[in-house]
């Protein structure tokens, strides 16, 4: 059975984010033109597609980092400013605040929300225990390894107990060993919290390995080239990578990707 938009879970899968008639232009370049898409609730969605097709633009528009030209993005029918969400940048070095200790970076969003200090501390302690984080968070970001810094970024995004978490190529600035470790951390976060997660990845293996659904985009103006299910049980391990289902889904995604690249 080929993976495809109609395949897998029932059409009634509950949408968390609904994107309707989304259009985005940079000057004359049309990146999105009347784009419709539903992001299902409680799933980890990987976004994969050719370089420059608009992956970052998509999550930045959903997270309100850049304005949209037309269309509507709703979260359970609510607007962005009515919900809590987290965003993890690729460039952790520039996203963390170097003047704050790691723990204060993590608690910063609560400070913005005017949560009292004692409660901030209680919540960060809870999060640390929940994720089983053992690194010393009294240090400043520049005293930590890249992976540790990105872990701090992820914790900073999670501290508000977001309804939805966005990550834009969060591991691409890390070395391979650290990337493998961080994939496990992210999987653990997702299993522990069940937060709807949108992960942009430029690594197909990673995109499939971590995802429940893989959103494959075409060159811009970006369209949904395919929306592929990958339902292997969690936690996924090295065995997942050699499993028949993983290999099938990955091959399918690669085929769709190559078809889209050749079109350009």
């Amino acid at each position, binding site marked *: 059975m080929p993976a495809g938009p109609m395949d897998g879970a029932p059409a009634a899968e509950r949408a968390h984010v609904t994107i309707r008639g989304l259009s985005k232009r940079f000057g004359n370049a049309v990146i999105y033109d009347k784009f419709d898409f539903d992001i299902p609730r409680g799933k980890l969605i990987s976004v994969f597609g050719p370089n420059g097709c608009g992956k970052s633009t998509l999550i930045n528009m959903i997270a309100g980092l850049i304005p949209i030209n037309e269309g509507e993005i709703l979260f359970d029918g609510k607007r962005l400013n009515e919900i809590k969400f987290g965003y993890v940048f690729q460039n952790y070095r520039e996203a963390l605040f170097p003047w704050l200790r790691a723990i204060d970076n993590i608690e910063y969003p609560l400070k913005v929300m005017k949560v009292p200090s004692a409660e901030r501390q209680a919540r960060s302690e809870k999060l640390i225990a929940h994720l089983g984080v053992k690194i010393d968070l009294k240090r400043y970001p520049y005293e930590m390894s890249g992976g540790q810094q990105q872990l701090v970024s992820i914790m900073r995004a999670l501290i*508000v107990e977001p309804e939805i978490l966005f990550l834009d190529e969060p591991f691409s600035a890390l070395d391979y060993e650290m990337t493998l470790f961080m994939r496990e951390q992210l999987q653990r976060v997702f299993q522990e919290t069940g937060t709807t997660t949108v992960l942009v990845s430029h690594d197909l293996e990673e995109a499939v390995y971590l995802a429940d659904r893989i959103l494959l985009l075409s060159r811009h103006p970006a369209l949904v080239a395919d929306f592929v299910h990958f339902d292997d049980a969690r936690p996924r391990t090295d065995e997942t990578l050699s499993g028949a289902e993983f290999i099938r889904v990955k091959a399918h995604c690669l085929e769709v990707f190559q078809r889209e690249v050749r079109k350009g």
Partner: protein
Amino acid sequence: MKRLDQLLPIVGVIGLIVVWYVAVWCEVVDPVLLPSPTQTFWALWKGMTGGVLGFDFFMTVRRTIISTLIAAAIALPLGIFLGSSERLYRSVEFVIDFFRSTPASAMFPLFLVLFGVGDKTKISVAAFGAMLVILFNVAYGVMNARKTRLLAAKVMGASRLRVLTDVMLLESLPQTFIGLRNGVSLALVIIVVAEMFIGSTDGLGHRVFEAQQLFEMPDMYAAIFAAGALGYGLNLLFLLVERRFVHWSGK
């Protein structure tokens, strides 16, 4: 080996003193014009401990600090304000750059007319020069705040004011300290020049000038070294403060 490396800066100092001694010994220069290092350091020691040089040193420090404080008090808030909007800064950039490029000494006659012969003129010209240097650096520090960091604060729901106080201000600190260091150096230069020529009765500039007029060469060299030590010390002071408060600078 590491230990020895720390002593490297002293090599130049010893070299200079040796060359100096040799020059005095060979009488390369008229002995009246070039006293020996011993004579000079003795004059420096006597002047600083109980002599008039110590008082002049203090007066110059006082004027330099006051003018830098005035400069910083104006330039920090103004620089943050101008830097928080790139368009705003661009619209005043030419004026700032123009006056930054104008030699501050050319402003003395104007300030003399405004403030008369006295400390007010010296301090205000120095403050004016230092202010522009600090202003320019603060504004650039704020404008060049990392975009990702501003976005990060924004996605966490920080208001514009919060972004300014929690991110832009701190982001601009390393550059602000560069401005403060350059500003205090410039203030010192202007103060010393003013003390030489603008009806002064004290200050290091006055001491150098008077010693030269009276042909007291050891005193003159001593005052020059005192001025050098002051400039170096002020720079070092700001560096130490920076290292303490802007611990993330350059990391």
